């Protein structure tokens, strides 16, 4: 078979082949090139396009001055509205991340250390809800917290309240509650994996050295679980900062987040340059925060162990 192919190949082709086969790096890049090209086309070009556009200036409805200005960035960083929306988005996502991770940790701990058989069943049970429609999971909280929703109709039929509570919906708290539930599974899995990896003999050694269960937890378990906690935090924080569905459905105008304003600038605001600048600013802020967070957490754990 190989010989047959060689005989039909022209000399140049076989030369190229030899050249390539002698250089594994090149071969690797040839293999990688379709993936790199497609991801590059679909992401780098749009993001670069966005970067270029962020230096334009809106002059009218979808009319732009392309001579280059930093105004959009100055506005993105200094205008009260954007500053508050950035802070609110970060606060909502940060709080969501914190609550989700804190709530998920004991469960992951339980599965890793106390469930002896059927661990996989537990994992599947906690993973399943994540596979149902995100939209419907968010919507179900609208059904629960709404004016005629489950909480209100339940409390009324129990005679606890006379009139529906209106503070349950259309505010940042409703967004946090909804997001916390929607992203729960994403927190459990990485934490579980990192706990599961902990060598049990290390725990026993700590106990033998006279550590109380609490000290053992703080000195051994927590630092070793840190990679999982970090992974969970990053995986929840980044997508929730840019979430559009949840603030739109349950946030109301007080629960507006940065995604809503980005959508506005690209939609009826017709100010694409400003939308681009806000997007890139958001991306940068998120990247810096995540970087700092991971760095600090790594250093802290490094010092401990």
């Amino acid at each position: 078979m190989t010989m047959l192919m060689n005989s039909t190949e022209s000399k140049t082709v076989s030369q190229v082949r030899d050249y390539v086969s002698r250089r594994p790096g090149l071969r690797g890049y040839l293999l990688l090139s379709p993936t790199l090209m497609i991801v590059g086309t679909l992401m780098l070009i749009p993001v670069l396009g966005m970067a270029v556009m962020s230096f334009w200036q809106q002059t009218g409805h979808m009319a732009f001055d392309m001579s280059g200005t930093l105004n959009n960035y100055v506005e993105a960083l200094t205008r009260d509205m954007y500053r508050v929306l950035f802070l609110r988005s970060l606060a909502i996502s940060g709080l969501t991340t914190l609550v989700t991770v804190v709530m998920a940790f004991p469960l992951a701990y339980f599965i890793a250390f106390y469930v002896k058989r059927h661990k996989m069943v537990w994992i599947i049970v906690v993973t399943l809800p994540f596979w149902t429609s995100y939209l419907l999971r968010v919507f179900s909280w609208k059904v629960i917290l709404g004016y005629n929703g489950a909480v209100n109709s339940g409390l009324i039929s129990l005679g606890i309240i006379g009139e529906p509570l209106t503070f349950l919906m259309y505010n940042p708290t409703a967004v946090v509650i909804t997001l916390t539930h929607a992203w729960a599974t994403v927190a459990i899995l990485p934490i579980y994996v990192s706990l599961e990896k902990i060598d049990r003999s290390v725990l026993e050694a700590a106990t033998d050295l006279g550590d109380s269960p609490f000290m053992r937890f703080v000195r051994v378990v927590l630092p070793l679980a840190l990679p999982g906690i970090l992974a969970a935090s990053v995986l929840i924080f980044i997508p929730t900062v840019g979430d559009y569905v949840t603030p739109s459905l349950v946030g109301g105008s007080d629960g507006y987040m940065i995604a809503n304003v980005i959508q506005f600038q690209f939609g009826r605001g017709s100010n694409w340059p400003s939308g681009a600048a806000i997007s890139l600013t958001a991306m940068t802020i998120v990247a810096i925060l995540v970087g700092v967070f991971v760095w600090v957490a790594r250093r802290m754990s490094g010092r401990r162990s």
Partner: protein
Amino acid sequence: MNKSKEFIARLQDGQFTRRQALKALGAMGFAVGAVPLGVRSALAGDNATYFTWGGYDDDGMFAPYIAQHGGPPNYVTYGDAEEGLTKMKAGFVVDVTHPCSNDIPRWKDSGMFQGMDKGRLAHYDDLFADLVNLPGANDNAGQWFMPFDWGATSITYRTDLVDLEGKAESWEMLFDPRYKGKIAVIDSAADTWYCMAILAGVDIGKPLTGDDIDKTNALMKKLRPQVRMFTNDMTSLQQAMASGEIVMAITWNETPVALAGEGHAVRFAGPKEGALTWCCGLMMHKDAPNLDGAYDIVNAMTSRETGVYVIDWWGYGHSNAAAFKVADPGILAQLGLDKDPIAYLNAGHMGVPQADDVETRINRDFEAIKTGF
């Protein structure tokens, strides 16, 4: 060679055989290959696309089109005409779209539309001449804007839950502290912002000045803490009004009609400062991929049949004068639509076209105020 085959065969024991793998991949590849992903071209040939406000994607408005084509046109919706304009300027091509009369010059100037050939407009002569000849609606190049629906934007309120204390209906009702947090407004500057402009005493029939905009913004800022929902979604709004979550809302004519139909005690206020009146219509894209279908959409929507449907089911005025002769006179009187449309529109305040930068600023300010700034 033999050795290696043996090796591989052993290796594959307990694995997927290659044949199985091939079959699975083949099936997958076939399924994907059979999927016509380039649907767009096929679609463009078959059916026309209508780009409109969410909610107007209602088959009831297209009975003649459906009879002709066996199905409704493709609907694409926007939350607000300004958003639609942005999307089209960005390169989104449709056949027919649905702006309002004060949008005409800006939309025309965008160079994205074509004047319609009067000869191909089947119901041209049945329409109210005053609407067909609205400023900028036609010129030598043809009919740029075919009027379709008209009506008012005003306050719908639950008469059983809102107590006016004997005062006359007014836009001031929205500021009543007793109803704080029980009020909804339309999430569109073209409606809510202009309603506040009327209350501010601004003449929206003229080009707006910076002072006019500031005065209106001040009222918008005062209104914002009262509001529970900024929404374009009239169905959610109706539900909220039916349950009593919302007792008062800025709406179009359709909401009180629908709520009254369900037996709720509601009224469409006639504010003493005057309501906001409007007339919206159809414009045809310059590069309409399906020109015949585009004319079929316009003709269906301006037909008498659709006119009756729009009046009876939506409670809106319609551009077809003949439809008014067929529609239920009781409903017409109840809606206040039994008059000449121009008299109706003039009884309220109708906005005139504004310059590009003014519209852009209004939209931007509206969004900021809505967000709390």
